[in-house]
């Protein structure tokens, strides 16, 4: 692969300190393809930098490669070892290593393979995503290699997590701080500075420096917590030994677990919202800040937030071209708009995206169709662009909370699913708890620790810019579902691959067909908080149902575990007479031995009749219970007036076998 999307020189401070070392080029192989990268790259970042932008196909439509769709990887030779699979985003790219992705491949005929090459689809990992995206099942069921413990476990290294760690350490508590990113700080810097407040980047730098100086805080960067269960955070990271990466499962227990997982980016719902070339602003910012990667040279930026404008400024400062910015809000106000105007961006307000499709034209891969936000009619010509970055607004990252058994509710005012109540030893801090500003998140981290360790309750100030100057984020927009050859409209970027159902256009079909059941019932996948947001925004579920769905369906998709050996029985040993035979033939039923001329053995349950042509259980006069010690059949018989030596008939399958009453017990 020769494509390279690195920001070699950038005037954007956010992107000036990537973790990759541009002086240390490396080469490795992924699924047999040679990939170039730099020391510090993850396999995912290097793949994206090399133009691999497609994870695979879902319903004949390509799906973008990102943190949600990235499959696990393993070193070549370990493909069949689930315990050696690693998250692609956490796996370091090592010079000379040979990696393979794990997952079901698209099945193609030889002709299909040729077509694939001719269409230039070498930019795909070629996974079959029809049965859903990868879930962390590969490593969730392996035992933890390391058990760690501390007084306080902090999950998330954003402003709140950093502040909580420092506050806990200040009170002599031992702290383990876990963050999935390669560097601490989260994405607070994306939102830029607010007048009268310390710029987030400076605040993060200051907190990070204090953390690194503190001996009682153990930091685990590049480590992802995938479950909190029984007071323990279960995490995965990769470690490199002798030049070879391998996964390591950690079980981190603490008296208290502070969840400062921040926010996740929502995805506006429109056909083509996960096509390759379409990317969330948070992911785009992280790629640029951590790895110096900008997705495409010419991009359109669609934003429902103020932060989207800032990302456009950062991209331009880095020498990239932002063709246009669209926003569903009319006359939005943000502190970045004047800059955006000064930079000469074409701004389209009151515009939602109706759909995005591939275009065959050279140099412009995507065609973006907009529609008016109020009238919902398509407006203008399609915007042709190389890439699309979407700032869809933010949702507290509650997947771990939900998996731990936490409850949520729907806040219709903010359009967010928010946590309610408490959940064992887990507490929330920062933006996952609803705080928006950098000072609010910082104070929240401190306040949580003071409450846990000292019992102090504090008032947290969360200063907001007046909406007159900073318009609130738009509600999640929903366009009509796909028609014809359009790509699916995903409800979220999550792994459940929920989509808006395609409307039935055939009138006859509409007339005779039953209503389609909701998409969630018919698509059995575990859901994430982002799936809930998409389902709520599209009316697939309503707010009243949220609690039930969150409780039952927001789970870690573990495999069902079989176990050798006998399970504890739930059927008590019965006395000689099974319970279901008590009173079966009346209160005077009695046990008789039977004799048959042939010495035939009957199964328990064979019915006994007075006449050979009877077969209905309702006219049975008895039933075979078992054989006695001499292998004579024993029958439970109604009081019929029959006596020893009388003939009865035992129905055994299709035949009626004569037998004679013997001894009465």
């Amino acid at each position, binding site marked *: 692969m020769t494509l390279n999307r690195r920001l070699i020189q950038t005037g954007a401070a956010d992107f000036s300190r990537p973790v990759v070392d541009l002086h240390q080029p490396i080469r490795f192989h992924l699924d047999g393809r040679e990939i170039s990268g730099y020391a510090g790259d993850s396999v995912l970042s290097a793949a994206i930098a090399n133009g691999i932008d497609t994870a695979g196909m879902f319903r004949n439509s390509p799906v973008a490669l990102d943190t949600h769709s990235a499959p696990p990887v393993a070193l070549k030779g370990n493909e069949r070892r689930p315990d050696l699979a690693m998250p692609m985003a956490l796996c370091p790219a090592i010079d000379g290593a040979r990696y393979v992705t794990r997952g079901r491949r698209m099945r193609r005929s030889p002709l299909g393979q040729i077509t694939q090459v001719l269409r230039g689809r070498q930019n795909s990992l070629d996974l079959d995503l029809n049965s859903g995206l990868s879930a962390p099942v590969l490593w969730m069921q392996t035992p933890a290699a390391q058990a760690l413990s501390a007084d306080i476990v902090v999950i998330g290294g954003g402003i709140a997590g950093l502040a909580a760690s420092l506050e806990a350490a200040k009170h002599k508590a031992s702290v383990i701080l876990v963050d999935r990113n390669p560097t601490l700080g989260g994405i607070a810097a994306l939102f830029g500075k607010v007048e009268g407040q310390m710029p987030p980047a400076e605040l993060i730098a200051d907190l990070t420096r204090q953390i690194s100086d503190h001996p009682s805080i153990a930091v685990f960067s590049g480590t992802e917590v995938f479950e909190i269960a029984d007071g323990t955070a279960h995490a995965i990271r990769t470690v490199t030994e002798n030049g070879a990466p391998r996964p390591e499962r950690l079980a981190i227990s603490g008296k208290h677990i502070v969840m400062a997982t921040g926010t996740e980016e929502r995805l506006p719902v429109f056909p083509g919202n996960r096509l390759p070339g379409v990317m969330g602003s948070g992911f785009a910012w992280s790629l640029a800040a951590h790895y110096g990667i900008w997705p495409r040279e010419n991009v359109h930026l669609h934003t429902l937030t103020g932060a989207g404008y800032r990302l456009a400024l950062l991209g331009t400062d880095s020498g990239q071209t932002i063709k246009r910015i669209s926003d569903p809000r009319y006359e939005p106000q943000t502190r970045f708009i004047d800059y955006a105007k000064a930079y000469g961006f074409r701004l389209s307000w009151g515009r939602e995206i109706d759909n995005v499709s591939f275009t065959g034209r050279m140099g412009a891969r995507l065609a973006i169709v907009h529609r008016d936000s109020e009238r919902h009619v398509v407006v203008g010509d399609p915007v042709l662009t190389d890439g699309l970055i979407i700032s869809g607004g933010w949702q507290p990252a509650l997947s771990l909370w939900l998996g731990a058994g936490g409850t949520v509710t729907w806040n219709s005012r903010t359009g967010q699913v928010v946590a309610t109540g408490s959940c064992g030893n887990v507490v929330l801090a920062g933006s996952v708890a609803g705080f928006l500003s950098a000072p609010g998140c910082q104070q929240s981290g401190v306040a949580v620790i003071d409450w846990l360790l000292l019992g102090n309750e504090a008032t947290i100030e969360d200063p907001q810019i007046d909406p007159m100057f900073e318009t609130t984020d738009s509600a999640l927009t929903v366009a009509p579902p796909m028609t014809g050859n359009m790509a699916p409209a995903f409800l979220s970027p999550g792994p459940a691959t929920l989509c808006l159902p395609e409307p039935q256009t055939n009138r006859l079909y509409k007339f005779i067909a039953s209503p389609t059941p909701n998409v969630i019932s018919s698509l059995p996948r575990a859901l994430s908080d982002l799936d809930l947001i998409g389902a709520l925004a599209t009316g697939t579920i309503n707010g009243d149902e949220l609690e039930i769905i969150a409780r039952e369906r927001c789970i870690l998709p573990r495999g069902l575990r079989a176990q050798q050996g006998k399970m*504890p029985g739930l059927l008590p040993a019965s006395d000689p007479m099974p*319970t279901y035979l008590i009173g079966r033939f009346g209160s005077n039923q009695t046990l008789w031995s039977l004799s048959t001329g042939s010495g035939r053995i009957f199964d328990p349950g064979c019915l006994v009749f007075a006449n050979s042509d009877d077969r209905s259980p309702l006219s049975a006069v008895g039933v075979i219970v078992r054989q006695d010690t001499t292998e004579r059949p024993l029958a439970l018989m109604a009081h019929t007036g029959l006596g020893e030596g009388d003939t009865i008939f035992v129905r055994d399958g299709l035949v009626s076998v004569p037998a004679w009453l013997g001894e009465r017990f």
Partner: protein
Amino acid sequence: MPDTPQTIAVVGTSVFAAFLAGLLAGHHSKDVVLIASVASPHRLPRSISLSVAPVLRPETWQVAIAQWPETRKLLARIGPEIVSRTDPVIAASGLEAETALSHLRHLAAGFGFATEPVAPAPGDGTNAIRMRDVEWIDHIWLSTYLPAWLETTGVRSILPQVAQLSIKRDGSGRIEDRSVDCVILADDDAMIAHIAPEILAEVAQTTSALAVLSEPSPRQSMAHVMRLDSATSIYQQADGSLLCHALDPDGFGETRIANAFAASANTRQAARVRYERLLSHDGAPLIGSMRQFRVWTMSALGGLDLTLAPMLARFVAGVASAEEMEWCVARRPTRSFDRSSVAELALKAHERAA
């Protein structure tokens, strides 16, 4: 409470409770209030429903077979695709369960159902039979259509948190400022919520159960497995996903599911819920009013709940036939559970020792 109540509160979130409420209002002209939590087709079904279920009393087979054609018609009016055919594999291991399976096989054959031994059976040391042409009632589809049907029958649905229900000792009740002649607790959740534990313990044991929906897995020849010895049920839906239920008093529910159905092992879970379930002391249904607290119960009906619902509605309305009346009365909660003459296979749940 009058012999034929006119105003009835049906309490329960299950599809059975809603179906019963609709039948009482729509077919018996009762004034019915359904007190149920949010009805959602996304809620994982807590039980399964069949046209005939693995029961061991001939009289229960008889009422189920007699009732099914009517129930089927009613369900077809509520919505399409609610009923589909299934050939359940009924498995058992251990002397008691295998004996019961043998009795079941001969009963089924006697009532005209084709049965055949299954080899190899699902699970080690297990015997199994396949019963042909049973009909499966899809709770997810049914719950999709029920709200609209309930509206046509005139049932008023109330959320329990919106209107406080108080039940009097004579079995009548009060919802806010309105009296009802009769309160029917129509599922396990309703009984657990409204009957004092010591009174409930006289008729049933409360235990934990697990329902799991899996991601789709390849189609299986044994697409529906039920185990007599643990009340485990696994049903493969049209999309390949497995809808699984198991008792879970000891934390082994998931293992029971995985062990019962080889294809389910390592299949990823898509939804999961742990809930409380009642096991009547003799394994038979609880129909009618309780001894001290004369509220009506309709519980422990097993897989026959929906099949028997029209008959139970007639029983409540006082228009059941003599045979139906006899069957229902024999299963009243005030019966003696010691050597009960209506007993079925009675499972007992043992909590895991701490």
